């Protein structure tokens, strides 16, 4: 009887854990979102919007976890998914330019090819996909080469966010000790 009594909570707990296992755990590379104008959703509920919604980027954030990232985990010269899990998605709510190329408003996937001093940023039409495993260059909209700057601080979680510029906005990508700015103009 005593044994059965002791076993009961153990059994219950085991069942509980089994029951939970069909729902997704919290991802170790969590999804995140950034808007331009910066913090647009917060500005919206504060009635502080001064310019219309232009862009948002949605990406999963891998961690450095002690690894050398650029030239290590992310090999120089090879296609990189610029995040983790689902392909990194950028949506433009109005037409923008990247260099001389006009990009129509809409949803796109971002990829990159990192090198030591420059990165190639790829804007591609294939959305709702996973990583860069099915990358199809025929669906590229444009490519642009940007400078890879070394930073003093080491960034643990890959970060993407927007910054205002005089003619539009930059998409900043930072991870480990590297930072790049992708200049979009209106």
């Amino acid at each position, binding site marked *: 009887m005593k044994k059965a009594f002791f076993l009961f909570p153990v059994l219950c707990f085991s069942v*509980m854990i089994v029951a939970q296992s069909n729902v997704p755990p919290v991802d170790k590379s969590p999804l995140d979102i950034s*808007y331009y104008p910066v913090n647009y*959703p917060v500005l919206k509920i504060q009635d502080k919007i001064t310019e219309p*919604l232009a862009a948002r980027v949605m990406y999963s954030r891998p961690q450095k976890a002690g690894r050398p990232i650029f030239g290590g985990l992310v090999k120089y010269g090879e296609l990189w998914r610029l995040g983790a899990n689902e392909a990194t998605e950028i949506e433009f709510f109005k037409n923008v330019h990247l260099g001389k190329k006009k990009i129509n408003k809409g949803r796109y996937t971002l990829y990159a090819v990192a090198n030591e001093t420059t990165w190639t940023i790829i804007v591609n039409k294939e959305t*709702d*996909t996973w990583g860069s495993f099915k990358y199809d260059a025929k669906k590229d909209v444009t490519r642009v080469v940007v400078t890879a700057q070394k930073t003093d601080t080491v960034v643990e979680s890959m970060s993407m966010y927007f910054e205002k510029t005089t003619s539009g906005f930059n998409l900043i990508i930072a991870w480990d000790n590297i930072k790049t700015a992708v200049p979009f103009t209106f």
Partner: protein
Amino acid sequence: MKITSCCFFLVLSIIFISCNSGKDEKKENTTKKTTPDSINRILPAKPVNPYATVDISPMDMAYFPVDYPKLKMAGQLTAAKPHARVIYSRPHLEGRHIFKEVLKYGEPWRMGANESTELELYSEAVIQNKKIKAGRYILYCIPQPNEWTIVLNNNTDTWGLQQDASKDVARFTVPVKETTNSLEYYTMIFEHAEKGADLLMAWDNVEVRLPLSF
């Protein structure tokens, strides 16, 4: 013999429990306590990130068909585009009883954290006999002990603390199912159903399903 089998089962259970709960425990140890409605971003204990801190209620998304992006990668798609996806942030219990202590019955809840929870329909859907056009919507709910009113609203790209009911598109009442287990992280997934999908909301000891057909 009985004692041996009892011990064996106990050891098995302990191994099972520690394997399954390890991830969540690790995460909780590194996060500070906060209220679910805090819009302050919390710096994780270890990593330095001057650009964009990792949120204590991380974002997640779910597609229908389930795992659509992975199916696309594997070349196993049966449809040219997904039917739906939901994007939401995942608050966690941290020892609280959400539906008794934190959320107030009868008051709107953003069904997540941070930015408003977003439902995108890639094609028209039918919910409780009502046609809902393809497009992006935000979701919020008004929880009651036995049922939730789930609201589709047009005020997209907003923060979840304030709802503008004048932009409501439709409201649906669905029953609440109590569960015996307690789920630490708020969870939204699509489950395959006979005529489409159920959008499942699960947290603490509560499960709610919104059936959609496509």
